[in-house]
């Protein structure tokens, strides 16, 4: 049985449906991320787990117990907020000890636990400081220590790194993961940053418009997106509109060019319109006589450091592909004509989810919504 189970959870605010028919089972010790754009219901779901909001329907079970109607202060869940939410009137040590004090832990044990946690978050000398005397990153570390002090059954993190600058975000997220692994604590992490979700999680729940789009490992989410939304939201993606030519051979026509080896179209009928997606890193320059290629014209070359992203136009459709920045690399020039290999096994045929997702206009390249941190 799952450690934390959400069954048929929904939440309505007036006539607005924030979360609908949400089912999720989380194993003990897992690190699960809720990923999605603003307003997708990820924070509302987290708040229902924490007990800050009551679900309109459904049940939440923790370790076999129904906690749906249990008040927050009896749930034993640690929460870390985006805005740190440290008590300004208390020192760092008093903040960390607050939950222990409420649990009537003796003064000596409290002091010992506070010292342990301060060491864990790498701020052993900061116990006597007030929150306003710490940097944002330090405050969030203290908030994490405060949440961990009560030995919660579940740790809930609501966009904990969003208020921090890029460098600290990366180092702190690695620290969070290290601490989580060390303590083996079941963790739910809400973020709109796909890089955070993919790099931290055992499993990612991609959400959109109050619904779960896909649940899977970061690799599954990135490599085999199940809906058009997931494909578009996670990573950078090329979208091609094509027509099925020969289902048995997995071949489709993109304008006048034939692409083969796309196994997912085998279930389709000849003449069906399909949406095919392919990651920029899967496309490569090839020779003009190679199979499975598109003739393209270079429109823009963008230097991104380790990689060079090239935007091209093929049969009226825009595409991007990446080149690794190796020594001696020859960059394509604007208006140059190239042949690009589109491997059939890298093409994903996506389905719009429940009619809610509209693919972007004809053959557009869809950029990830979140900045790379």
């Amino acid at each position, binding site marked *: 049985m799952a450690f934390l189970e959400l069954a048929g959870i929904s939440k309505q605010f007036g006539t607005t449906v924030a979360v609908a028919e949400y089912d999720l089972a989380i194993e003990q010790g897992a690190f699960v991320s809720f990923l999605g754009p603003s307003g997708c219901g990820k924070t509302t779901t987290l708040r229902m787990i*924490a*007990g*800050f909001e009551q679900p309109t329907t459904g049940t939440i079970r923790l370790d076999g117990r129904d906690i749906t109607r249990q*008040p*927050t*202060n*009896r*749930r*034993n*869940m*640690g*929460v870390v*907020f985006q*805005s*740190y*939410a*440290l*008590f*300004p*009137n208390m020192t760092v040590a008093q903040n960390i000890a*607050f*939950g222990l004090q*409420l*649990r009537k832990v003796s003064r000596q044990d409290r002091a010992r636990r506070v010292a342990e946690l301060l060491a864990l978050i790498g701020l052993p000398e900061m116990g006597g400081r*007030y*929150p*306003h*005397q*710490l*940097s*944002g990153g330090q*405050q969030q570390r203290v*908030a994490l220590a*405060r*949440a961990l002090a*009560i030995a919660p059954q579940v740790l*809930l993190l609501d966009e904990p790194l969003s208020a921090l600058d890029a460098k600290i975000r990366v180092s702190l997220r690695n620290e969070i993961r290290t601490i989580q692994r060390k303590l083996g604590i079941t963790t739910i992490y809400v973020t709109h940053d796909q890089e955070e979700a993919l790099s931290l999680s055992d499993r990612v729940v991609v959400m959109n418009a109050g619904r779960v789009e896909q649940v899977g490992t970061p690799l599954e989410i990135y490599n085999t997106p199940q809906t058009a939304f997931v494909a578009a939201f996670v990573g950078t993606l090329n979208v091609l509109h094509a027509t099925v030519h020969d289902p048995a051979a997995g071949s489709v026509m993109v304008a006048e060019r034939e692409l083969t080896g796309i196994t997912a179209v085998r279930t389709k009928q000849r003449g069906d319109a399909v949406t095919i997606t392919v990651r920029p890193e899967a496309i490569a320059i090839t020779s003009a006589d190679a199979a499975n290629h598109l003739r393209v014209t270079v429109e823009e070359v963008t230097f991104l450091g380790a990689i060079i992203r090239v935007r091209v136009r093929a049969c009226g459709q825009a595409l991007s592909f990446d080149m690794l920045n190796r020594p001696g690399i020859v960059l394509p020039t604007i208006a140059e004509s190239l042949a690009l290999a589109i491997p059939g096994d890298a093409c994903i045929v996506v389905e719009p989810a429940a009619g809610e997702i509209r693919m972007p206009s004809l053959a557009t390249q869809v950029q990830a919504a979140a900045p790379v941190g």
Partner: protein
Amino acid sequence: MRRRLWSWVWLAVGAMYFVIPLGATLQFSLQAKRGEMGFTAYRAAFASPRFVESFGFSLRVAAATILASVLLIVPTAYWVQLRLPRLRPLIEFCTLLPFVVPAVVLVFGLIRSYNRTPLTNSSEGLAVLLVGSYVVLSLPYMYRSVDNGLRAINVATLTEAAQSLGAGWGMILRAVIFPNVFVAILSGAFVTFAIVMGEFTIAFLLAQPGFGPYMNQVSSSKVYEPSALAVVSFALTWASIALLQIVGRRVSGPRLSGGGR
């Protein structure tokens, strides 16, 4: 340069509006003995048992008023901000009513409403009624002050953080909300103190031995003592304001000014 000069001129005119009457009162209060300046009037005023009695009474009433309004207003303002933000305009309107309703109307309304109850048929009851009226009088200052204090902190998130750590409502108010709006409470408390110490109408109409009615009574029978008491009353108000500044600066410091370094 010319503009600057005029600024100073207008400031001086404005200051004279306050300073001249006050200076005159002070000077007059020091002239109780013919031909010399001294504190005779002050000594006489302070030596009167009625002074000690009325001053002590007003002090106790002020303390009770502050306590009652803090206990009433902090949880109310907190709850309005946390759960009923839509009611804020209505609550703000109610808190401003004491500015519109004259004290005389208020006191007759109270007497009519509580007539033939323990609140009007004993002196203790009347003192409670007096405290109640002062709580109403101080509402605009206390509520606004506390409400501003609460707006300066993230009430909703701090509450949720405390709840997640296991705190109930009582503990949240006591350990998180009260300490973080302490400066705001102090600010409201000093203004309340100043109002109560000098209030005349309500105390007089409820026949309570307050400092205001005592000053009024003295002014009808003495010459120099009323001026001395007026100066004392002003000094008290100014001391309250000065304390407010000092304590506010020391307690809040940079703490409420923000997060990062």
